[in-house]
């Protein structure tokens, strides 16, 4: 019983972390209509910035959680204004290619700045212990990730459904020309949304830093996971991102424990199964070619 409880909690913290990252990918897709291939690289950048702030600059974890995502968001504004602005009016293939180029640039820059080796970030003292829950001992940090994940989930829901900014983002997602006609500065919205997506990715990166070792391949892993989440849940769907993330979290949480030989393969099998029966994801709307 305790094994199942621990696996469930483990699934939940992986799932909510994935949700934070995948929902950023989804929001950017919804408003800008591009898939940001560099999303995982931005997540990695958040983790490495946190490493520098904590281990080199000696800041507390909380300061890094606040500052690193802001730094990544500023970089995203630069990427948007310097590179992406050229291709918004072009074919979707160009945005895929350009964000892929940005991914290569960020990946290699991380390798150059921080090296190819592994870095470790310690969780803050307050969260480094463990507590007994559901008959097994659970890392306090896991519970913290779950709490932050739920907080962001509620915050995003509130943002999109109850605030003016959320309404403007949804309007821009539905019909950008119409939004422009209604005196909304859509260029500002586009830049803002791209930076917000990057901020979410970096928050995920900082949160993940004490749980996983930092290496230059971590962004690649997470972008594949995020793609699986949005494919399972449905591209552009907010509840879909949550559902997809929880499903993938469960696959990892239980697969890692009970089927370790094939655990790398299970997420893909899950994705293929969903694709066979629901080509647009569980919550997705039509997008057939």
């Amino acid at each position, binding site marked *: 019983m305790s094994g199942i409880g621990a696996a469930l909690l483990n699934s939940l913290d992986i799932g909510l972390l994935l949700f934070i990252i995948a929902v950023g990918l989804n929001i950017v897709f919804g408003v800008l209509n591009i898939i940001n291939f560099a999303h995982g690289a931005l997540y990695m950048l958040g983790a490495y910035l946190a490493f520098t702030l904590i281990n080199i600059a000696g800041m507390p974890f909380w300061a890094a959680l606040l500052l690193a995502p802001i730094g990544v968001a500023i970089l995203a504004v630069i990427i948007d204004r310097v590179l992406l602005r*050229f291709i918004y009016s072009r074919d979707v293939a160009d945005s895929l290619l350009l964000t892929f180029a*940005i991914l*290569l640039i960020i990946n290699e820059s991380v390798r150059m700045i921080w090296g190819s080796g592994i870095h470790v970030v310690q969780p803050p003292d307050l969260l480094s212990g463990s507590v007994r829950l559901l008959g097994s001992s659970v890392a306090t940090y896991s519970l913290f990730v779950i709490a932050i994940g739920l907080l962001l989930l509620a915050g995003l829901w509130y943002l999109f459904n109850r605030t003016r900014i959320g309404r403007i983002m949804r309007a821009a997602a539905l019909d950008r020309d119409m939004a422009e006609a209604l005196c909304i500065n859509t260029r500002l919205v586009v830049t803002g949304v791209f930076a917000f997506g990057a901020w979410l990715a970096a928050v995920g990166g900082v949160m993940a830093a004490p749980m996983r070792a930092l290496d230059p391949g971590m962004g690649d892993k997470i972008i594949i996971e995020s793609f*699986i989440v949005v494919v399972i849940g449905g591209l552009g769907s907010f509840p879909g991102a949550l559902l997809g993330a929880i499903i993938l979290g469960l696959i990892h949480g239980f697969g890692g424990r009970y089927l370790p030989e094939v655990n790398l393969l299970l997420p893909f099998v899950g994705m293929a199964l969903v694709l066979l029966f629901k080509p647009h994801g569980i919550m997705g709307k039509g997008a057939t070619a």
Partner: protein
Amino acid sequence: MKNKVLMAILAVVIAGLIAVPWIASYFYVFIFTEILVLGLFAASFNLIFGYTGMLSFGHAAFFGIGSYATALVLIHLQWSFLACLLVSMGASALLALVIGFLSVRLNEVYFAMLTLAFGMMVFAIAYQWRSLTNGSDGLAGFTLGSFGLGLDLTLGNPLVYYHVVLGIVVIASIVLYLICRSSFGMILKAIRQNPERVSFAGLNVRTYRLVAFIIAGTFAGLAGGLMAPFLRVASPELLHWSMSAEPILMAILGGTGYFLGPFIGSAAFVLLETWITTYTESWMLVLGIILAMMVIFFRKGLLGTAIDWWMEVKK
């Protein structure tokens, strides 16, 4: 007239390629072998990207499977080289059927994500299935036996191997070119420009996209089969997405709108890589910057930009 000029240029280029082992150093024989193999890989990718308009981020899956198939057959069965290549093509065609079936029915954005994810799935399998693939070390220690067809060639000699590669790549390219020029190729072009209209004309777009995907995968498998004996190892890097980035960059670099674009891209890519890696280890950084610049400013590639410039001059 234009065709005659083009044929003359092609004949000179191929004659030059045949003469490489006599006029260039040993080092450049290796460079040109790589250019030819990767050129075929990029040309197969361009069948689905430049012609059909499907941007795949997982084309290395077929290239890598081709390499592994040849390596496995050489290790366990020691068949002739031609038989190995046929196995490579068959294995990649089968894999392309499975991945394509799940991916081609969705739009471009989904297709890009799915091909990347499935490509990395194949990478994960090669990495984890140690008993078959030898994990991260890859398969090595295989030697080429006979060529097949009763021909007596010493394939272990890099100079002989270069000519074998040249012959096979030229034949494969002619077949690929004929496919592109056929009515089937025309339909693929039409699908890129306007899939709705093709579908209203009564053609099954999904089937055409799937067949194109399988053909591209098969030729990528052939290129992979040629690569393994050249590198003398089949390792998971051949399946990684950074390998999938190479044909994308080569096609964009050379020009996706032309059949020969990917070959020119491959030559530019390999020569640039050789040159740049003597100065810096961060080849991927340079690659990213070049790709970004090509996409933003020179979307037609080297060949397209050169042809536009030539037309301008002639006026």
